């Protein structure tokens, strides 16, 4: 299963040419990325790492799959340590942007990485990138922590005997994930900020409206524009 469908039901295999085109687009952006101080809602002691080295990160994305498979199939602690070094700070940053204090965020980041180890057998590189899979664990951990709204999961699909995943499908997922990172980085700042607030800030659109003073309609249309751009970029 791929999430191609969301972006364009007609999409077949990813095209390297398009990836390059997207890289060129994003390289025209100012390299500074987003300044937390400029955005009260996002302000906090959180560093924005990595936006300057998109290509470097793209290469790493596929590496993490190898580490993850070594954890899953070989219970490899060295590979786990490498995943920890990369992802634990990011999970902590994600939780701090949601308003969690640094100590709690650090504990939760450790919990999330422990869950990654224990549930590694559920990782399917044809369905999600390592970042995406970790994001879902971190999101669920945040929901547990707030103890407010349970979030049931859909029924697990049973595919019958598990075939060995095709390497091309694994590669496709990683490439598309890398393109998505670039497409989000290339969004106009006011649109990207809203997407970040929706995911990190744990804010509803109405709450974003109250905090920013922007009309709800403006927020909805900016998010819609952002999603349209992402879909277009992923064609």
């Amino acid at each position, binding site marked *: *299963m*791929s999430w*191609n*469908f*969301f*972006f364009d039901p007609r999409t077949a295999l990813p095209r390297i040419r398009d990836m390059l085109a997207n890289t060129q687009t994003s390289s025209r952006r100012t390299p500074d*990325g987003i300044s937390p101080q400029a955005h009260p809602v996002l302000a906090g002691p*959180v*560093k*924005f*790492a990595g936006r300057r080295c998109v290509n470097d*990160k793209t290469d790493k994305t596929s590496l993490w799959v190898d580490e993850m498979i070594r954890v899953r199939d070989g219970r490899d*602690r060295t590979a*786990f*340590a490498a995943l*920890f*070094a990369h*992802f*634990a*700070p*990011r*999970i*902590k*940053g*994600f939780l*701090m942007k949601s308003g969690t204090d640094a100590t709690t*965020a*650090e504990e939760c*980041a*450790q919990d999330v*990485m*422990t869950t990654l*180890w*224990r549930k590694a057998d559920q990782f399917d590189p044809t*369905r*999600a990138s390592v970042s*995406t*899979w*970790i*994001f*879902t664990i971190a*999101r669920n951990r945040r929901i547990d922590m707030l103890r407010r*709204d*349970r*979030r*049931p*999961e*859909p*029924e697990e*699909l049973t595919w019958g005997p598990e075939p060995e995943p095709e390497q091309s499908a694994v590669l496709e997922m990683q490439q*598309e994930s890398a393109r998505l*990172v670039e497409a989000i980085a290339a969004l106009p700042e006011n649109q990207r900020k809203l*997407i*970040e607030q*929706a995911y990190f800030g744990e*804010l509803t659109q109405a709450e974003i409206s109250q905090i920013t003073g922007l009309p709800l309609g403006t927020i*909805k249309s900016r998010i*819609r524009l952002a*999603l349209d751009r*992402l879909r277009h970029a992923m064609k």
Partner: protein
Amino acid sequence: MTQTHIKHHLDDATLMGYASGTLPEAFNLIVATHLSLCDTCRAQALAYDAVGGALLDDAGSEMSADSLAQTLATLDDGFDAAPVATATGDLPAPLLNYVGGDLDSIKWRPVGMGVKQAILPTSRGATARLLCIPAGTAMPDHGHNGKELTLVLKGAFQDDDGYFARGDIEVADKDVQHIPVADIHEDCICLAVTDAPLRFDGWLPRIWQKFARI
């Protein structure tokens, strides 16, 4: 138990809210139930998760020096995996825990005009209810003060927006005024989720609403 002929799907805002973890429990429940039936929306939900994954790549902070050692020390402590429910009858898996069984376990209460409901235990902020509408019966004409999602589990209903059969979900907001009518062939069982009371036109339904908590 995927359905192949689903025509009415979830909206972007709800799918994004499910991925970002910002929905009230009742909405999470109806999304999970619809995704259990609808491959199209399931694929979209994965895409919204991927947006979260892409954003995670850009977040960053620093961990304390001994955090890796602490984590490594606890990796193999015992833990219990949560049991996973599997659907065997008409109700998709996410609903089974809320109902305590399949359709025959639902504790229906009459709310008038032959309609029955069962309110499911969820957090405040939104209400999830199962509705059983007798075949051919019309629900009272109503509008919405907030958002109403209605997912068909059995039978079908029709309103101005179209024909909704098992797996179809209707997304209604403040602009939608409708009179859903259950299909004549069998009773229609739906999961309906609202984040604000409905707005009824007739005075009788308005009084009835107070008692039925609709």
